[in-house]
Each structure stands twice: as structure tokens, then as C-alpha cells.
């Protein structure tokens, strides 16, 4: 009989060992916090009515070719409802959490996806890691996240990043691999450098696929808000979490509805990026 492996103990030792690098983790915390503060500062600065107009304006501009008035009406009513329910500030905090996580996910995910597309070895190594990141229950890495980054928005962002990065990586990889061979050949035949080939041919052609990945990442980040609230990330998730604690179905539903409204708005806005601008 093989004795039970002390796997849990090993991980604990690893975490203990890692905590000695708290200087490193502190600087990451500070960096993330700076991004979070910047987003939050902007959202707090903009008056609510202007914020609503901006969102409607962006949507209108994005969809100017197919004139979807229904979406604009939905957005207007939805945002007014959030305002009315008193969730506005929570909503901006959630938006901050989601946008910060997605931003970081893109900064990591797109270059990693490109690297994977270029090197089969990288793909072989990274793919199982992505599987791991997506399937490991989120609660599990909340524990070390708190150990390294304390309580608050930062570990929430971190947990969201881990969960939200894989689609961007995978879709970037896929998009670049799907660029037709004669297009990359044409780029090379005219003497493009690798960078020219990447920026003038591969990324533009892969853009719709990459944007589909970005859209997925954003949605996954949003799905993490309630879990992130358990380690002190503020926002709509906190409202849901409190409602669960107080066994208040009504308040929970109201906050949950706000999350849904936010999700639909973010989804529709980013979805239009995934459409090829020349396909109309």
C-alpha cells in the first residue's frame, strides 16, 4: 500500500515559503491597486447622468450600421433601475473590478496566445495550465491569494484574472493559427519582418477571433464578482453576499439583477468588436 501523499502539506510549505517574498507581492498589490484606483477615480468623477449618456453614445456609435433601438432602450432602463435601486456606486466598483481584471487578462493573454501560435512547444506546455486555471474551483486559490495580497480588491482582481485569462489566450492562439497560409506567405514574400507580419497581417486578420476571446474573458471576470466579494472585493457581489448572509432573497435578487444588466451591456458592446468591419 502506498501511504497517503502529504500533498496538502507540500502546498502549505510552498505557500509559506512564497510568503517570504512579500516585497514582490506588495509591489504587485500596489500596481494592481493603482489601476483599480484610476478606474474608480474616473467612475466617481463622472456624474451618473453623463455616465448613462456615455454608455448609450458608445452603443449607438458601435451599432450605427444596424440601428438596434431595442438595445439602447434596454440600456437606458437598466441603468436607471440600477441608479434607482441605489446600487450605482456598487455597480461602478464591480465595473472597476471587471475592467481591471480583463485589462490584465488581455495584457497577459494576447502576447501569450501569440507566442503559443508561433511555437508548438509553448502550446503543449500552456494548454494544460489553461485547463487547470479554468477548472480549479475558484475558492481554492482565494486562500493563498489572501495570504499573498491581503484582503480587498487586489486578491479579487487576481482571482478573476486567473479565471478570465484562458479564453483570451486560446482564442488569440486559434485566431493567429487560422490566418490563411497564403496571406502570411504574401507578407513574407514582400520582405516583412516578423513584427510587420504580426501587426500588419496576423493580428488584423485574427482580430474578430481575438475579440471573441476578450468578450469571453470579460464575461468570466463578471461571473467572479460574488466569489471575489468573499475576500473583500467591493461592489454588487458584496450586496449579493450580504443578502445571502441575511437570508434576504429580495435584496439578493435585486443586486443579482444589477449584475445581469451590467453583463448584458458589457457583452453587447464588446460583441460588436468581434464582427468583421468589412463583412457588411
Amino acid at each position, binding site marked *: 500500500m502506498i501511504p497517503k501523499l502529504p500533498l496538502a502539506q507540500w502546498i502549505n510549505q510552498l505557500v509559506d515559503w512564497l510568503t517570504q517574498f512579500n516585497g514582490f507581492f506588495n509591489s504587485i498589490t500596489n500596481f494592481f491597486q493603482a489601476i483599480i484606483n484610476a478606474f474608480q477615480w474616473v467612475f466617481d468623477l463622472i456624474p451618473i447622468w453623463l455616465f448613462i449618456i456615455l454608455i448609450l453614445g458608445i452603443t449607438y456609435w458601435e451599432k450605427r450600421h444596424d440601428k438596434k433601438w431595442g438595445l439602447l432602450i434596454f440600456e437606458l432602463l437598466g441603468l436607471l433601475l440600477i441608479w434607482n435601486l441605489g446600487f450605482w456606486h456598487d455597480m461602478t466598483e464591480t465595473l472597476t473590478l471587471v475592467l481591471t481584471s480583463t485589462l490584465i487578462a488581455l495584457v497577459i493573454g494576447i502576447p501569450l496566445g501569440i507566442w503559443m501560435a508561433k511555437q508548438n512547444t509553448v502550446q503543449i506546455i500552456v494548454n494544460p495550465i489553461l485547463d487547470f486555471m479554468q477548472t480549479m474551483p475558484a475558492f481554492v486559490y482565494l486562500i493563498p491569494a489572501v495570504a499573498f495580497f491581503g484582503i480587498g480588491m487586489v486578491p479579487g482582481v487576481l482571482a478573476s484574472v486567473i479565471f478570465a485569462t484562458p479564453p483570451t489566450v486560446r482564442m488569440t492562439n486559434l485566431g493567429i493559427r487560422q490566418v490563411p497560409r497564403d496571406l502570411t506567405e504574401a507578407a513574407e514574400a514582400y*520582405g516583412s519582418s516578423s513584427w510587420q507580419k504580426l501587426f500588419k497581417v496576423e493580428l*488584423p486578420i485574427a482580430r474578430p477571433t481575438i475579440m471573441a476571446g476578450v468578450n469571453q474573458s470579460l464575461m468570466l471576470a463578471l461571473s467572479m464578482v460574488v466569489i471575489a466579494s468573499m475576500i473583500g472585493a467591493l461592489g454588487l457581489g458584496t450586496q449579493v453576499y450580504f443578502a445571502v448572509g441575511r437570508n434576504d432573497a429580495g435584496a439578493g435578487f435585486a443586486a443579482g439583477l444589477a449584475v445581469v444588466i451590467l453583463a448584458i451591456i458589457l457583452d453587447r458592446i464588446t460583441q460588436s468588436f468581434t464582427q468583421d468591419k468589412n463583412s457588411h
Partner: protein
Amino acid sequence: MEKEAKIKVQNITKIFGPHKDEALKLMQQGMSKVEILQKTGATVGVNQANFSVAPGEIFVIMGLSGSGKSTLLRMINRLINPTQGAIYIDGQNIIKFNKKQLRQLRQKKLSMVFQNFALLPNLTVLQNAAYGLEIQGMELNKRNQKAHDALELVHLHGYDGQYPQQLSGGMQQRVGLARALATDSQILLMDEAFSALDPLNRKDMQDQLLEIQEKMHKTIVFISHDLNEALRIGDHILIMHDGTIDQIGEPEEILTNPANDYVARFIEDVDRTKALTVKSVMTKPDTININKSGPRVALQRMWVNKISSIYVVDDENHFVGFVDSDDVSQLVKQGSRDLRSVLRTKVPSTKPDVLISDLIDQISKTPIPFAVLDDQNHLLGIILRGSVLAAIAGEEVE
């Protein structure tokens, strides 16, 4: 002396797959592609190819799919790196080039046109045509001007701002051609450039290519699987199969003198009138010199050759006309020695490079054989109907 080759391919070999060294050795021992594949698992793409392309010519590489023609073409700009051998462009071995030299070479000297056009869907027609120049780092206004000029050259007016998908196949390939011409490179590599087009468009594009070639004198390596196309545009044709070159020669040479059974089968179904020129079917006529020969000589020569008329030239073999045996007999009876009085100068004539297909209608309607004259009016030969028919049937003339 022959002009220095623009592109010289020396013993170039490409082997795909594992065990390249072993495969190379077997290949040099003369083993076939199939045997090498069975023994080593390696695929011979191109087997020790040798050829050179002269400046300003259209060199067609012909073969069916899998013959290695695309691989061969891609080794000239090193989209595929050869396993062995050397390629000289303007005397420089490009196989030895480093990355930077290679990029320079591709930017300045080589352009490529692709079978499925390979235009960027996110760029406009103008931006696509300017792609090569953009890569070179040319500033926007200048490159747009050059790209615009190139588009005019391929008769694509007013489409600058459109996107490729909005254009027909033929028009898209014009953009591809304009992209290649815009960079002013001397060498064009054309990979089945017209194969994706419908027959009418294809013929249009071939005409246009020839028209452009007349003006620009590029060195063109053109890949095709269509023999009629090759015969139409090629100055030289290379035929290959299974990675091996079967024959290199001028279109007529290939048609009249196939090097082996493969080539012979390849050319079986071709429409010969579209490839054969007057030169290859003309025969050497018997002539008399107007300044030296009188009516009696003329009669005697006609009698010997059993013909009823004879062609007349001057001292420098300039064509003068022909005389008929009845007229000459009359002259002899009259005791006149002046052949010029019965000389007939209204003779159908043609040039040696004219295609038989352009002439066949007239040949069938004219009773007198056509005289073949060069630019200085020298008599090179005559066209007999019988030899035209023989040539079309694929038989050797004389």
C-alpha cells in the same frame, strides 16, 4: 554569347520529412521518389533541379499537382529553404543570405503573385497594392502614388477605395499583380496566378501580362498546370513531375521534340495551332536569282523540282516575287531573256513568329504558298498546306 542568367538554379533539392541525409544519398544514387519514401519516409519535393532564367523572359514551370513546381518556385524567394543546392540571383547565391539580406532581396528584387490572390481583406485595394512599399518603409503619399500608378497599369481604375471582397476574381488578381509591379522589382514569381480564374478572365489576364511584359521587361517565373497557357505566354517551358525535371525548352521545341514519354503524353491534347509558329512549319523553297538566272534556268529548275512556279530573289536573298512556268515558256518562245516582265509580285507573305492559328484561315483560302519573310524582306521559307496539316497532327515537318 548568352546573356548572364538573371536566376540560376543549381542542383537544388528539397526533401520533406525525416532522414533527410539518407534520402539525399539514395536520391543521388538515382532512386525514385516512391522508393525513397518507402525506405526512409522522406518525401522528395524537388530532385536536383538545374535551370537558368534569362533577364526579361517568361519562364514557365509546368507540372501537375504534386510535381514539386510550387516548392521549386518558393525556393527562389526562400519561402521554402532548399535541402541542398544553390540559387544565384544576379550572380549572388541567395542560399547563403542571412535574414536581413533575404528581407532586402524580397523587398527590392522579388515580388510574388498568388493563386488565390492573397489580398488582405482588411485593407483597401490601394493599400493592398501599396503593401510591398509599406514594408519597405516608403512614406504614405509616395507609396499611394506608386500603388495608384500600378493599378492604372493593370487597368483597374477607380477601385482604390474598395475592399478586395467587393471585386471579382479577375479584378482581385489585377490587384495582386499591381502589388507585385508597384515595388519595381525585376523578378516576378507567379504561382498559378491565373488558375483560379474562369477561362475568359484567364485569357484576359494572360494578354495583360504579355502587354505589361512588352513595356516592362520583367523576368517572370510563372507556374502553371495548363499547357495551353504555358505555350501561350512562355519563352521557355520547364516540365517536371515527381520533383524531377523532364524537359526545358522553347514551346515549339517541347511540342516538336518531347524529351520523354511523360512530356509526349503531356502534350498529346494540346491545341498545336496555338503554339506552333510559321517558323516551325515552313519549308525551304527552291529559288532563282533574278540577276543571274534567265528563263531557261527557271524552267529547268521547275522541271527538276516538278513544280509549276518558282520563287525569285535578288543577290541578298531579298524576296522579289515568283514566276509561273507557262509565262516563262512563253518568254523562251519569244526569245526574251527578261524574267522581270513576267514576274508576279502579288504574293501572300507572313512573318516567321506568327502563330499558325492566326494564319490558318488565309492559308486554306490562298492557292499560292505563303512566303515567309523577315523584317529585311529576306525569304526564309514558304508554307505548304501539307506541312501545316502534318504539324497540327503532331508529325515532324521534314
